[in-house]
Every structure is written in C-alpha cells, then in structure tokens.
C-alpha cells in the first residue's frame, strides 16, 4: 500500500473526496497531514518564516477553493506542491526585484559580537566545531536562497523534500530532462558559490 505523508493513499483519496463534497473537517485533516511538507518547502524557498506562513496558508486556501477542479490525475500532494510552487516562485521573484542591495556571500556575517569574516578554521572535535558547522549550514542556506527561483525549486524539492524527478516535473510543469538539467546546474552553482568562500574540498566530509 502506498503512503502519502504517512497516510495511506486510500485514506487521502477518501479525505479529498469528502472535502470536495464540502466536508470542511475532512479538509482540515488534509491540512494537518500536509502542513509539514508545504510549510517546509515554502520556508526553504523563501527563507522568511512570516512570508512562508502567508504563502503556505494561501496554498491551502486556494487548494480548498479549487478542490472542485481537482480530478485526481495528479496525486493530491503533487497538486498541492504545484500551487505552493507557483505562489512561492512569484513571491521570490517579487522579492528579488524589490531587493535594494543584493546579498553577497563575500560580505562579513553579522553577530552580536560584531562582524566577522566567513572563515572556517581547521578545527575538529571542539565546541567551536558545532558553531562552525552551523555557520557553514547558514552559508549553504544563503547560497540556496541565491539560486535562481527555478533552480532553487528543483534542488529544494529533490534534495530536501525528497520528491522524485517525475513528481518534480509534474509540480513544475516541465519535462523530466529539464528537471535533471536544472538540478545539475543548481548543484554546480551551489558548490561554486561555496568554493568562493571556503575550500570545501578541504573539509572533512565525514565530520560535517
């Protein structure tokens, strides 16, 4: 039996059918089931928690309104992701246009103790290692946020949300080959961005 977000596919289909017939509590259950996936996706796409909540909420509201048009050709979670993607990509593009000063990975990080350069010391097994790892993760998060929206959507869906190539193609409405080429470009750009900051080839991968 296939499962979707921890729920049996048949149970999801039943909830969807009931929600389509106007059963609001059934839709409420679908929100509970998919909120982690959808909020996780848009928060990784947008980076801002408040903005992510707005977009995730709008995703579910639009899904409810559009339920009569959902014919089940795609799985419900793919359909939800598609609504979320359209909204998140629009917001990300708008943010990019409105951004007055582009974020630069070369700029110093700000902290309460003041600014400091993005340097990763060659230490391991110390309390500093955890801090450095978090700094590196923050760098990666910012590097992901720097990717063009379409590359970002693919890399987040595949690497972080665990979606398949086929589902991503359906979510983003593009051919399978496009998904693979975008993923390739996203990986390459991410690694290049990080290499401008730290010698990632020197990092001990197993200790990360």
């Amino acid at each position, binding site marked *: 039996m296939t499962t979707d977000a921890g729920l049996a596919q048949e149970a999801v289909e039943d909830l969807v059918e009931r929600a389509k017939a106007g059963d*609001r509590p059934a839709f*409420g259950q679908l*929100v509970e089931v998919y909120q982690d996936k959808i909020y996780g996706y848009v928060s*990784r796409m947008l980076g801002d928690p408040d903005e992510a909540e707005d977009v995730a*909420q709008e995703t579910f509201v639009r899904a*409810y309104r559009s339920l009569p048009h959902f014919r089940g050709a795609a799985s419900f979670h793919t359909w939800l992701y598609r609504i979320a993607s359209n909204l998140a990509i629009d917001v990300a593009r708008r943010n990019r246009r409105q951004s007055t000063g582009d974020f630069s990975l070369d700029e110093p990080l700000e902290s309460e103790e003041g600014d400091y350069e993005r340097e990763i010391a060659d230490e391991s097994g110390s309390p500093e290692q955890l801090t450095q790892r978090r700094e590196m993760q923050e760098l*990666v998060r910012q590097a992901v946020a720097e990717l063009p929206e379409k590359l970002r959507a693919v890399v987040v869906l595949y690497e972080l949300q665990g979606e398949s190539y086929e589902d991503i193609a359906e979510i983003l409405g593009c051919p399978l080959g496009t998904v693979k080429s975008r993923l390739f470009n996203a*990986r390459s750009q991410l*690694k290049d961005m990080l290499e401008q900051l730290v010698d990632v*080839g020197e990092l001990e991968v197993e200790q990360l």
Partner: protein
Amino acid sequence: MTCKQVHRLLVACWGELEQLEPEAAEHLRECEACQREAKALRATRRLMRQSAQEPVPTGFAGRVMAEVRATEPGRVGWYQRTLGWLSPPAPAFEWARAAAVGLALVLLFGGGIALHHGVGGTPEPGSHAVVVVDSSPADSSPAATVDLETLVLQHETLALTQALSEDAGVHLVTYSH
C-alpha cells in the same frame, strides 16, 4: 576520460564515488583536482541536507481553517445563516429579508385584525404597531414588548404566524406618536 567529463559525472552524482562508472573512477584515483572536486560536492550536499527545517508555526492549521471558513463562497453554516438574519444582511439576501418582513406585515394587518383583543382600540393615522407578547393570557399586563421588525427578524415567518394565530398572550396593539 578528461577532467571536464569526470566533473560532469561528479556533479550528476553529488561526488558519490560508488555511483561513478569504472572509467571515471579510474581517472579519479589518479587526479587530485577531481578528488578535491568530489569532496567539495559531497560536503556541499551534506551541509545542505543538515540545514534544519523550520517547524510549522503553532496553530497554523487552525489559522488556515479560519481563513477557509472566512472566504468560503456559498457554503454557509446554519449558525451563520441565523446570525445573518440578525445582523445587516449581505446584498444578495436583502430581498429575502424584505419579502419576509412584507409577508409578516400583510398577515398582521390583513387577517391579523381578528387577533385584536381590544387593548389599543382603532389605530389612528400615523400610529405605529407593536406586538405585545404576553406569556400569561389571564394577566392583563404585557410580559414583554418588542418592536415588530425585531420580532420578525428573530423568528421564522411561519413560526411567527403560528404564534399570532394562537390566542395565548399575543396581542396586537397600537399607540400614537
């Protein structure tokens, strides 16, 4: 196999060596630059996967459902319909309320004269009708006095008609301004 070819394969597999074809793996064993490239890709992927997911904000699902209820077109609960009768109506339902009020007035002033029990006498020009609801017919003092429109709004039209037709404490009275 060239470094450029191997590089493309490494990006495609995030530097995971076990996924490389034998020819590329052989190149990698002897090429330090490609080994560093593979390591950089593996580190990038691992760091990305370690980035914590933001937890869903508390009460998120509740807020979604409140928004769903607020924006739901054409699907109104019974309690909202009741409240709708008591509060300023939406334009789409204005006609229905007006029709119900009109029907009640016709019933009251047409056939309803028969219900008159002599509390007020003949209405004078410019007079205003009120309905006196008396829970105790034997007692001549009214228990409660409510404005006609309020009563109409608070009751279904049929229920009101039925109440007026019962000779138990419902009196039509008039008074002058």
